[in-house]
């Protein structure tokens, strides 16, 4: 179904193909809809699709454009390019790197480039830096786990590349801006030393993490050839969510604009949710003057009148500005929100019950569509998601989640494969902590053998798993035991056992081939756990991909390690196969969405009903705190010589909260349900800024009158 555009939107979508337009407006005013329609009009007007590039900060934000491109009514032909800075730089570096070989490995400059995934960066850091940290007693005043520590070092490198300062200046920048004693600031020197070691190693071995990829890209860009290549290829540019992109992207857009025939640059007001990742609204806004004209959409296409009134109240409370709509006197704003009922607000779990009951009533009594409801929390932990999903499932309400999927290493299918891999490779010297135990075998058997139950798997493991290895089923001489296990399961167990034994007697395969064979030859066959189990197949496929990438990168490093063993060790440690992005972030109209608030904000959609959970959580208003990095100090807008003060901190908190809550309200059509409980999930009483703000607001809002209830029904 096609949305009818306003005259203003239409004038932008149908603007001449020679015009460059800068479009701004708050969320919900139809900017992306206009952008998508512009894309359609460009193609309809005969612009070759291959000359159009849609640039977004992250792939998820391109979904409306991708849907338009896949539109079956569209004629077949060349494709529009949808790109992010990451994909663009990856492609260009891959194409043009020989132009700048002098900046790469001195010893072997023409050695193939290897692009490192995030998990490979973690692995490499773990391998390279762990001994250095131990030896030098680095970070002895910082209490964070290793995974977080390495991700901050990587983050600092990325920031230097995104903002464009030498990576060797990270420590100096942080130290000059952050208050603290010399003693406490030495951690930045430690972080700098680690970053330097990592960068040198990458350069020496032609390994590109995101930061090095960007640096090389920038150098290539300066070289001119790649720029000319892009300029000649893409004549029409649509860039959406500019405010969420980095200065590098803005620089690239700026350069492309000069040779482009048309452009539509779209920016959201009061957003900037990716600042901690280097997003820069100021450099985005600077692009406005390079365009032929600017437009601003003002009218919301989403919020009802009561939600608009509530937004005005919120803005007044949070900024001290005048209430433009004067909604207070009418009590309309109060109608846009509903708070957890008193008796349901003691425990966290009661609040979850309230959510499920309210969702049910919205669907069954008010006729709300499942896809028009979203449940949001500042942080969506597994336990919270699971508890919500099970409560809603019991009420026969489907849900889906927008967030990185469960780590591969937590999936039963992965654990079963890892257990078999360990059994099949006795030559791996596995430490005591990671050795297979009886319960691993039980879990592997219940997962790998179809219909296997926990009791019989336990009997099998009790009898046939000894001295870290499996034994054949026919060694069970006790007839009763054989009967208890059953011959059917005995036979299936035997096939796994024999496959392992056969594998052990032949030369070892690479880990990805091993996993592929195990899946293909045994586990996907009839009688085994993954037979026609497409979820498991997807997980195994991801695992095989991950292991292959690891093998390729690890062999590039050329260490004397058993790559398979190393891979399994890293999976066990939760370093590899940790975060897996789902292949597609697809909206589902038939299910309630459960998502972290930020993810929802960056998912380009509005809904009728929102639930905000845990309003007492400080995470609603808190920037990410990491002791080794500081996104604001490392941003392009930071002025040299300034000191990061508590006032900055306070201002940032206010701004974070303001942007998140107003951003959410702007994406809500009818009502916001506020979830509150005195005790959080761990039994603590928190007092976050959002709860304080609501407390203050509720005390000042007049209640809704009967007449207004009737009016509400009309909205």
């Amino acid at each position: 179904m096609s949305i009818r555009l306003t005259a203003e939107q239409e004038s932008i979508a149908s603007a001449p193909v020679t015009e460059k337009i800068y479009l701004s407006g708050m969320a919900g005013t139809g900017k992306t809809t206009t952008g998508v329609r512009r894309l359609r009009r460009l193609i309809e007007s005969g612009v070759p699709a291959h000359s159009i590039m849609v640039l977004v900060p992250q792939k998820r934000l391109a979904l409306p454009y991708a849907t338009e491109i896949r539109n079956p009514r569209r004629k077949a032909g060349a494709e529009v390019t949808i790109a992010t800075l990451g994909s663009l730089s990856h492609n260009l570096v891959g194409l043009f790197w020989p132009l700048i070989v002098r900046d790469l490995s001195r010893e072997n400059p023409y050695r193939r480039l290897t692009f490192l995934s995030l998990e490979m960066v973690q692995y490499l850091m773990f391998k390279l830096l762990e001994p250095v940290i131990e030896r030098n007693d680095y970070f002895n005043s910082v209490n964070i786990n290793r995974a977080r520590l390495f991700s901050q070092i990587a983050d600092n490198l990325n920031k230097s590349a995104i903002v464009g300062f030498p990576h060797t200046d990270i420590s100096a920048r942080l130290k000059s801006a952050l208050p603290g004693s010399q003693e406490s600031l030495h951690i930045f020197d430690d972080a700098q030393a680690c970053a330097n070691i990592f960068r040198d190693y990458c350069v020496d071995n032609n390994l590109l993490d995101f930061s090095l990829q960007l640096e090389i890209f920038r150098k290539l860009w300066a070289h001119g050839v790649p720029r000319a290549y892009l300029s000649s290829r893409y004549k029409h540019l649509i860039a959406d969510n500019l405010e969420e992109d980095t200065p590098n992207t803005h620089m690239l857009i700026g350069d492309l604009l000069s040779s482009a025939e048309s452009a539509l640059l779209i920016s959201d007001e009061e957003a900037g949710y990716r600042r901690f990742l280097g997003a820069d609204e100021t450099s985005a806004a600077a692009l406005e003057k390079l365009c032929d004209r600017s437009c601003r959409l003002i009218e919301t296409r989403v919020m009802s009148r009561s939600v608009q009134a509530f937004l005005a109240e919120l803005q007044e409370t949070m900024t001290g500005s005048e209430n433009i709509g004067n909604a207070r006197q009418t009590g309309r704003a109060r109608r846009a929100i509903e708070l957890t009922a008193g008796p349901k607000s003691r425990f966290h779990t009661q609040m979850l019950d309230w959510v499920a009951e309210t969702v049910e009533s919205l669907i069954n009594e008010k006729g709300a569509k499942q896809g028009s409801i979203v449940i949001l929390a500042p942080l969506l932990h597994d336990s919270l998601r699971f508890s919500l999903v099970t409560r809603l499932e019991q009420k026969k309400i489907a849900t889906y989640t927008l967030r990185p999927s469960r780590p591969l290493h937590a999936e039963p299918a992965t654990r079963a494969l890892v257990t078999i891999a360990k059994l099949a490779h006795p030559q791996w010297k596995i430490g005591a902590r990671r050795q297979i135990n009886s319960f691993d075998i039980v879990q592997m058997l219940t997962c790998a053998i179809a219909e296997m139950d926990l009791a019989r798997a336990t009997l099998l493991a009790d009898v046939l798993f000894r001295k870290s290895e499996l034994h054949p089923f026919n060694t069970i001489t006790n007839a009763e035991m054989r009967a208890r296990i059953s011959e059917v399961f005995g036979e299936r167990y035997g096939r796994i056992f024999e496959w392992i034994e056969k594998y052990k007697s032949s030369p070892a395969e690479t880990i990805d081939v091993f996993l592929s064979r195990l899946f293909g030859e045994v586990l996907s066959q009839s009688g085994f756990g993954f037979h026609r189990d497409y979820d498991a197949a997807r997980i195994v496929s991801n695992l095989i991909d991950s292991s292959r990438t690891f093998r390729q990168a690890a062999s590039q490093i050329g260490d004397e390690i058993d790559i398979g063993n190393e891979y399994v060790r890293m999976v066990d440690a939760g370093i590899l196969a940790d975060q897996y992005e789902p292949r597609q972030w697809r909206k589902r109209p038939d299910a309630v969405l459960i998502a972290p608030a930020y993810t929802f904000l960056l998912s380009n959609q509005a809904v009728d009903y929102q639930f905000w959970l845990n309003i007492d959580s400080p995470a609603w208003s808190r920037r990410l705190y990491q002791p080794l990095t500081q996104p604001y100090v490392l941003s392009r807008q930071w002025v040299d010589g300034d000191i990061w003060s508590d006032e900055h901190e306070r201002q940032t908190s206010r701004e974070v909260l303001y942007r998140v809550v107003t951003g959410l309200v702007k994406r809500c059509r009818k009502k916001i349900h506020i979830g509150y409980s005195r005790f959080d999930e761990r039994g603590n009483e928190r007092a976050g800024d959002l709860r304080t703000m609501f407390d203050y607001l509720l005390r000042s809002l007049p209640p809704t009158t009967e007449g207004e209830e009737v009016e509400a029904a009309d909205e």
Partner: protein
Amino acid sequence: MSSIHFTPRPSQAEILKFTGGKMGVSAVPGSGKTWTLSYLAANLVRETPLEMDQQILVVTLVNAARGKFEQQVRDFLGEDSLGTLYRVRTLHGLANDIVSERPGLVGLADDFQIVDDFEASDIIKEALAAWFTMHKDFGIEEYLAPDHQNNDKSRFQWRNEATSIAADFIKRAKDYRRRPEDLRAVMAGFGQSLPLAEMCVHIYEAYERGLRYRGGVDFQDLIRLALDALEADPDFLARLRRRWPFILEDEAQDSSKLQEEILRMLVGEKGNWVRVGDPNQAIYETFTTASPQFLRNFLKEPGVVSRELPVSGRSAPAIISLANRLIDWSLRHPNEEIRSRTPLAYPHIEPADDNPPDGPANVQLHVDMKMSAEEERIFVAQSLKQWLTQNADKTVAVLLPTNPTGAEMSKVLAKFQIPYIEVLKTTTSTRQVAGSLYRVAGFLANPVDSQALSDAFVVWMRKNRDEPETREIAALLKRAGRVEQFTAPRESDWLVDNVSRNDFTERYDTLSRFRTLIRRWQDATQLPIDQMLLTISGDIFHEAVDIATAYSIAVHMRGMFDINPEHRLKDCVAELKEIALNRRKVTGLSDEDEQFDPSRYKGQVVVMTLHRAKGLEWDRVHLMSTNNYDFPSADPFDRFIGEKYFARNELNLSAEALAQLRALTDGTDYREGIATQDARLEYAAERLRLLYVGFTRAKRELVVTWNTGKMGKLIPAKPLPYLNSFQKG
């Protein structure tokens, strides 16, 4: 509108006139200090023009008091709001708030973990194991008595004891704000050999590495880091000062030096601070830097308005009189060194005009009854059994010096079929939730065990656990040899074979439903541990508090599994067992945890430690184990908990280790034995205060008994004969 009525006494009304500045209040037990302070907090909330980010801050010592306080302020305000105009925190909670607000200031990420005492102890044990591998005979010659040096049991005990020595040392070093590397540097140039300090500094280093690796901090760190954060950024401090224009502090006598410093910084020169406490009830001094002297000093500071709450309407006059006699006796304590420490001081408690009436049963001091520990328990149980028959509408508590003795007493009460509620490390309901999860998870870890199957069934049916049908089914399941034929039948189905669907339709249906659940739980073993526990708890718990507690346990378990990726189901079962057996503390959510109200347990016996009983009151109180071991007077024949049987010269090794630490931090000489003697005196003084706390919990009846201990040699606590003669006289 306030939902409760409070008419202040004149001395209370004086305090309620407070509008600003600094005030110190010395209160006696039962003087209504919590009521007064919460009323004052409510008044300040109403009368102070607070901005959106401002709050009245109330600080308490322990969580149980916090919940009670919070409720009272809420009741006094009588508003149906989100309650953000006031904040009631324990000192640790406050420190956590401060650190969490600016974790980067003190080298933490925003998701830092708080490592609890149990895990902290594990890290220390691991480090000590490594230490003793390298130094096999460490400390044997230096610290074990000659006849214990070759005794394997004593050597083993010494290594065990080293854990608590190191834990105390680390806690104290953190209280002094000394890092291990500082101590290491001082020790290198220190002229004397300090073996205990050497071991402890080494363990401290390893411990800190362990915390760093986990991205965690311990409870002690929270206080230290909060102070660091306040010192690191004056703007941050100024912001917090603005946020909390009034700070009200309860139980101020138990604040440690660092805790007092945090509050002092938050208040600042011109801030408003009301501190209420009773130096006679300071019972957290041993092995901490807390001291009632801090409050006494505060009361004398220039600019501080000093007030008293000397009137108590709690106890019958005879009980008040007994408590006052104890003060008198302590002021004339036969041991001069204890006397000089003023364990208890004036003012005497003054009765109000509405105290419970005098009666013959007000004070029952069984000083002349010599009993073994078991005999004492039986005596008390019998006494309670009889008393409860006529006083089902009254409240009663059995107060003991330690958690293990409390657990022993509970067993005897159960044997006598006396209704009781145990509030020890964790509350009964938290433990029941953990116990239920333990049974089910235990079965999942051992799914071929019919006894475990039967136990899981009883958990599921626990509301009807005493029904004959439940027992019969449980017995039937226990006899099921091949569990898999019930849980996952293939060739034959145990249920069909053993329960006739026609004759026992209800039983068949019950078991059929149970089987469906078991399959669900078995499938859940493939899920992450928290989700498995949540699945089970969704099926077996129906009360909001149980579900919330189970959630809290599940989150706790997930945290444990995240830190220890090698953990499996059996580790979860072991942990649940620890919680269920009261060896492990988790945050509980039930009313007993959050705001224990004795009046909710009329006709039931509350079993509690004396420490936990502070702030509470019952119609009748049994004070047990009042012998010269639990309440010593530093007589030559007294034995002290801190002095281990295997230690040379009756040294208190923890106290000696702390003295060695003190030498390092102050640069003074260390002389062996002085700290042991000092610890005796300090402990004896504190235990007198504990006895005073015990006496003053009783409203109408106080029953005091003692026992002769394991070796049968203990005698009544020293003040008891005096009090007894006074009582008889």
